[in-house]
């Protein structure tokens, strides 16, 4: 027996499943525990960095005029605890955070949590759509290139991915917006929906899904059409990245004994690809998809500003350019949380895809 936890060569099926399930639970609990620690780390980093920013948050918050008045200034500083030591300020911040209070945005005048509640789903909707599109395209292209290694198809894929990786996202966003909206008029304009349409009642915050839940076909099509162009622009870079990686992983798996053994059994070519090759390549692909999702989030800042998409990127840009500290900290925190969630999901999927993680 190669497993360390059990000598179950003779164990019946019942005992085995019960024993085998606990390692996965333990593995996930451990990951969740790490995530909580990391989350605390994220708050420390965002708080520290934001407070190191050169610039006068008091002037930014009150406006140049009011900040000239020493009494107003004094009152503001005391009310926000800005006269307290740094560590005390951090705990004040954490206390508010735990109550779900991220402060008030200086730009919008609304609670940061309220702003984020609409901005985050807008961005996550693009990001998820883009990662799904990129992954689907990349798996096909990468596998094709690996199977046709050195042949014409491989070269074509190589050029496509090179273009995807070299074209700057903001340039592509501008050009495609100009071409498909202003010239060809086949893409809808900027924003999440057309001005003539009312937003769906909020359930998930994803317009496409909320329209569907509401049974509003027209709204769904409009939201999907608005989503299409930014998603395609964002996907191109990710496709370049993923395709190259998938090609390499598939080549590695194709050279493996288990693929040769599957062929020797007379399993059909399609079954070999789906059951053996892609499953074998799934773990490295999963790892890089997690990384790609992060890269994709940073790409949304550029794409959102071109398409006037009211998401996290636009919000981050506005907060930063106005020295809106509560807004900036809110964005930092949310981005940190998104990364943690992605990592947790990736870890979870490792457990699902790899029995050695799940059962060992």
């Amino acid at each position: 027996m190669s497993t360390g936890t059990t000598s179950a060569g003779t164990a019946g099926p019942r005992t085995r499943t019960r024993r085998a399930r606990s390692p996965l639970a333990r593995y996930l609990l451990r990951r969740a525990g790490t995530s909580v620690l990391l989350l605390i780390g994220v708050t420390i980093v965002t708080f520290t960095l934001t407070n190191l920013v050169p610039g006068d948050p008091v002037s930014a918050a009150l406006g140049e005029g009011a900040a000239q008045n020493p009494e107003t200034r004094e009152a503001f500083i005391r009310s926000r605890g800005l006269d307290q030591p740094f560590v005390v300020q951090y705990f004040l911040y954490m206390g508010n955070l735990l109550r779900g209070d991220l402060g008030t945005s200086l730009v919008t005048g609304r609670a940061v949590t309220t702003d984020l509640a609409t901005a985050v789903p807008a961005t996550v909707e693009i990001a998820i759509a883009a990662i799904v599109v990129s992954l689907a395209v990349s798996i096909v292209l990468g596998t094709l290139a690996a199977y046709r290694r050195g042949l014409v198809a491989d070269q074509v894929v190589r050029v496509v991915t090179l273009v995807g990786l070299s074209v700057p996202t903001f340039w592509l966003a501008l050009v495609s917006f100009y071409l498909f909206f202003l010239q060809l008029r086949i893409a809808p304009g900027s924003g999440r929906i057309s001005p003539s349409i009312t937003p769906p009642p909020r359930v998930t915050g994803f317009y496409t899904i909320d329209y569907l839940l509401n049974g509003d076909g027209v709204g769904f099509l409009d939201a999907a059409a608005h989503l299409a162009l930014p998603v395609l622009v964002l996907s191109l870079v990710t496709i370049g990245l993923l395709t190259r990686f998938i090609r390499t992983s598939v080549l590695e798996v194709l050279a493996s004994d288990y693929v040769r053994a599957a062929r020797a059994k007379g399993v059909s070519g399609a079954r070999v690809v789906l059951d053996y090759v892609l499953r074998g390549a799934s773990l490295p692909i999963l790892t890089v998809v997690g990384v790609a999702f992060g890269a994709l989030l940073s790409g949304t800042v550029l794409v959102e500003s071109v398409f006037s998409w009211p998401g996290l990127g636009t919000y981050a840009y506005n907060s930063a350019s106005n020295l809106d500290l509560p807004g900036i900290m809110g964005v930092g925190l949310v981005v940190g949380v998104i990364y943690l969630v992605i990592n947790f999901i990736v870890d979870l999927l490792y457990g699902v895809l790899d029995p050695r993680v799940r059962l060992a």
Partner: protein
Amino acid sequence: MTGVLTIDELTVDIGRPLVKGVSLDLHPGRIHGLAGESGSGKTLTSLAVLGLLPRQATTGGSVRLGDTELLRMGRRELNRIRGRRIAMVFQDPSSALHPQLTVGHQLTDHVRTHLGLNRSDARDHAVEMLERVAVPNAADALGRYPHQFSGGQRQRICIAIALACDPDVLLADEPTTALDVTVQAGILQLLRDLATERELAVLLVTHDLGVMSAIADDVAVMRDGRIVEAADRATIFAAPQHDYTRGLLAALPGSRLETGTHLEEDGA
């Protein structure tokens, strides 16, 4: 007498000639040993039979299963032979089994294709096969993954997979090399028994003449892409004709053969 599988003047060229005219006849119920050091072309010979050579390889000569020529066969036709009429067992069972697929999956997917069995019949068949190769708790084993088995058990599973569709020919490429010495004998005995009971023609590829002497009926010794000597086991081991064969035999630990010749320096 012509065998079930006839390899005739087989050549394999991958950038340079690696197999230079190999002829072998495999007969039902007999184990045909193919010996030789690594790089002698013995593994390429077995891969060529199933069309598993790398894409850039070119082949010549002929490989016939009964009256059917295999070398120039299309992929689709070949897939009906692979696993069904000719099966293969590989050197390292820990890499020849897919780590993310259950034993049951790997033991039934080709059976369902080749024999047209439904899921539950294929499953019953798989249990029988595992019981035949002496994997404990066969029914339970189907739901488990390769890493949950020992090396010897994994190779037994590979043998069960290979023989599940009751093929005529088994190609075994160094089937015991990656295993502990203590379990090698069990695997060899299993192969010997299966060859006899299933009228299976076995091509046993190995560099290990000790393994060969244990179970092979006929032995061919390969060197540098050619067969330098072929005879039945008794003849080869009692009276090796070729210097190279004597050298290989002399290199066996505890060899009873005193040939006085040593393996000559290999310049190739």
